[in-house]
């Protein structure tokens, strides 16, 4: 368990990153430069997810093996999504 202060900092960062994602769209950056901005937006989402998993779900304090359980599932769907999408490109 981290301190309430840490949780609050994480929460503020999460809100800010979400706003950034939407702002990118509103400012029209996405239309100008679709694929790089798509990358940026997804990286931001991944960062947010890691923050939630690491602090709110306490993965930082659990044995590494718990993270691996979740990561196994993630790798599985990435294989499915990448394999299926690649097969038709």
């Amino acid at each position, binding site marked *: *368990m981290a301190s*309430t202060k840490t*949780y*609050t900092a994480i*929460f503020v960062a*999460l*809100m800010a990153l*979400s*706003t950034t*994602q*939407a702002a*990118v*769209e*509103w400012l029209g950056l*996405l239309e100008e430069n*679709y694929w790089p901005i*798509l990358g940026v*937006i*997804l990286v*931001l*989402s991944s960062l*947010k*997810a890691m923050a*939630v*998993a690491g602090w*709110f*779900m*306490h993965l930082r304090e*659990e*044995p590494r*093996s*718990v993270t691996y*359980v*979740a990561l*196994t*599932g*993630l790798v*599985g*769907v*990435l*294989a*499915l*999504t990448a*394999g*299926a*999408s*690649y*097969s*038709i*490109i």
Partner: protein
Amino acid sequence: MSDLPPRSSVKRWLVTTNHKDVGILYLLTSVFFLVAAGVLALLIRIQLLQSGGTILSGVGYNQVVTAHGFIMIFWFLSPFAFGFANYFVPLQIGADDLAFPRLNAMSYWLYLFSGVLVLGSFFQGATFMGGWTAYAPLNVPAYIPEFGEVGSFATIVALIAFVGSVTIGSVNFLTTIYRMRAKGLRMRDIPLFSISILVTVWMMLFAFAAYLAALIILSSDHLLHTSFFALETGSGPEATDSGSLLWTHLFWFFGHPEVYIVFFPALGALAEMVQTFAGRRLVGRKWFIISMALVGIQSFIVWMHHMFLTSINLEIKTVIMVTTVAISLPFDLMVFSLIYTMIKGKIRWKTPFLFSIGSLVIFIIGGITGVFLGAIVLDYSFRGTYWVVAHFHYVMASSAVILIGAVYYWYPKMTGKMYNEFLGKAHFVTSFIGFNMLYFPMFIVWETPRRVFHYDSGFTPFHLLATAGAFIFAGSFLIMFYNLFASLYSDRHVDESPWAYASSPEWAVSSPPPLDNFPGKPSFASGKLNFLDRAGTDGGAKSETATDGGVATGDETLAPPEEHADHASWWPIMVSSSVLFAGLGISGLSVSYAVWPFALAIPAFIGFLGVEGARQDGFALIHGIYVMVAFPLTVALLILFHLGIGIFEAVGNASPYFWVGLIGSVWGSYTLAGFGYESFEVPEPKMAEQWPFESVENTKLGMWAFIASDIIVFGAFVGAYIFTRFEYGWEAWWHIAEDPSAHTMAGQALEHHPVLPGLINTYLLLASSFTVVLALTAARHKGNYSLGPLTISSRQATLGFLGMTFMGAAGFLVNKGIEWVDLYLHQGWTFGVDVMSSTFYLTTGMHGLHVIIGMLVLLFLIARTYTGAYVGENEDAGTLEYFGLYWHFVDIVWLFLFPLFYIL
């Protein structure tokens, strides 16, 4: 929460949560389904007596073929293996029971009732008739004859219930095997059967999650008329460009691991039997285990070899061919390992060994013919022929043959009686001859197309031979039934072990084993199995509960665990029965009624939370509030219902399915509330080998395993979306919704689909994630908070934060409701208007469903916190933490849905 009645009483079998009882229930039920699917197989063989068929129509034959596949694979093979797993895994690893006994019972009842649903579908017009592979778009109502629509959907619902059973079971076994091993028993040391179960449940956890996603997508096409697989246009149904291929990807991503899921438990049992009857330790045991693990991993990257003739590109075919070949090699190693184990053995040709060696022969033939299929050029010609049919029956039925051997192997342990050796051998000989007569001719006339009863007249003799073999094979089981039944009443008593050289722990206890499995606490710390004095080993440690509900007992832990571990509960069978009724109801609901039985169950659930809470924890204000709120909420829903459909029309016109569904879901509300409040003590394991999860409690590990599988479910939805979007052109995607000409049904195009609602919902969910963490912090806070003149107890703070979480979730739903009303009603962007709207509504809708479930659990937690649970001196608020894990996961999912569906 009562004592376990004796085995002679019927009640015992309804309320038991003991793993050995559940194991026996699994075995008996799966044998029942074996007979059912076997009869279907005989119908197939009779139909094939002559080209053009004998007794079945085209649709009749399709139904029989489909149901035979479904029932054999799902309702016989896996549950049969898991009957043994239930019975023997805890015994083999030195555990008293599984980690979550009540959930284990629930797995069983869900399995049974899902089976009832699938058999019942025959009587709802027709069962599903598109093959067990259920290829799209033949699997959606547009291409199913009207008389078969209800039964087809009932089959799909039955499969969903079955997946529920499988997922609960997988989580349970994973937790048990990782956390409850006897001291000194490292992961690599557990007997091979248990290892094979471990690999199997890992695969099940992920593979069935992908299947669940596929089934939910399919259900939504059935129930909500989304259009993943086919669009309804003015001129009739029209398949989507992506649907056919999407289904094959999702299905085979599950389907290929499924092959190993049904085979691995048998492989583990085979290794144990060979070891015992050869009187020799397994050669290359370490490599055998590594091979199994490798196959388990690789099984998820070979799925496209079932799709070589679809429109996937050559590059991916090459990759898949390589992985496919690679997956055959570990099997070579395992087969050689088993053969070499026999060298210098002391081999006794007892019945289990006969079945072992027979199944090895069968498996070798199945394996070699499988390599044929790995060569793509040959596969092209074998596709859809009896080569495939013969090959997978050699592989899958070799699994069944091994498990039949395992019945003889473990029969003395489970019953305390020895089977009749002569009849056992007679069973083997007839079944082996029958089996090969049935399936080998299929290799010779492999050019017969699969699922077809019109074949070349020249093939007839071989099909006659196969039919004769089928009846011999089926008849051989009668010998087994007689043998096993008669032997129960024989005087051939056995003590601990009738077999020489049996080495795994189940043979060290009496036959059948006592309720709590071992005479003392099993331990391998000395290098071999010992039973330690229970009271001594448990002394002083504080008891932790594995379920919520009830206050953990403090000082009673000095007593042996069997005295305070609960064994009986009515709730598993009751909760599962509600799934039967709700499932039956949903199968016949029309789209306008679809949501109502479940919506009306929500106020019922809140009311029952109050009633059951007052009953179990004593009346408190919160219970009164829940009961009170339930009434206006019901009235509000009824008004909505009246506006939507009209109550009077509904009462007059609603089909019986509506009422069955309503009863089922209300019954589900009641039983879930009861399940939640029941105090059911299962002590956390103490003095157990728990690498690599030493500091993770059982329930937390179980929750993480569940989340891992839910990652696959949501990942598969997102994957389906990404795949579909690539198929239609990634950047052209939005034009689908914005192009008026594409919307012949809606008559108008989507005007706008703004980012803002998504952003607001992101804020709301993040905030609720934050408050749920604060609730946990407050619950673990020692003493009161003081804010100036105000003093707030940690319980009040916890309640406050939980309440804020609930409000955040409610805000999320309200905002989503406003958005959906705008999109659906005002802009005419209905569920099925195009494939884009389907992906949007279903994926975000499934997420919304998770939010609703989370809110209902929150109401339960709030009531429990209010009446004194979770917060306080002897509490560590574990339950709040586990709920938090779920809630944060739902939050994380949204963090990806937001950009994918609102921004990009």
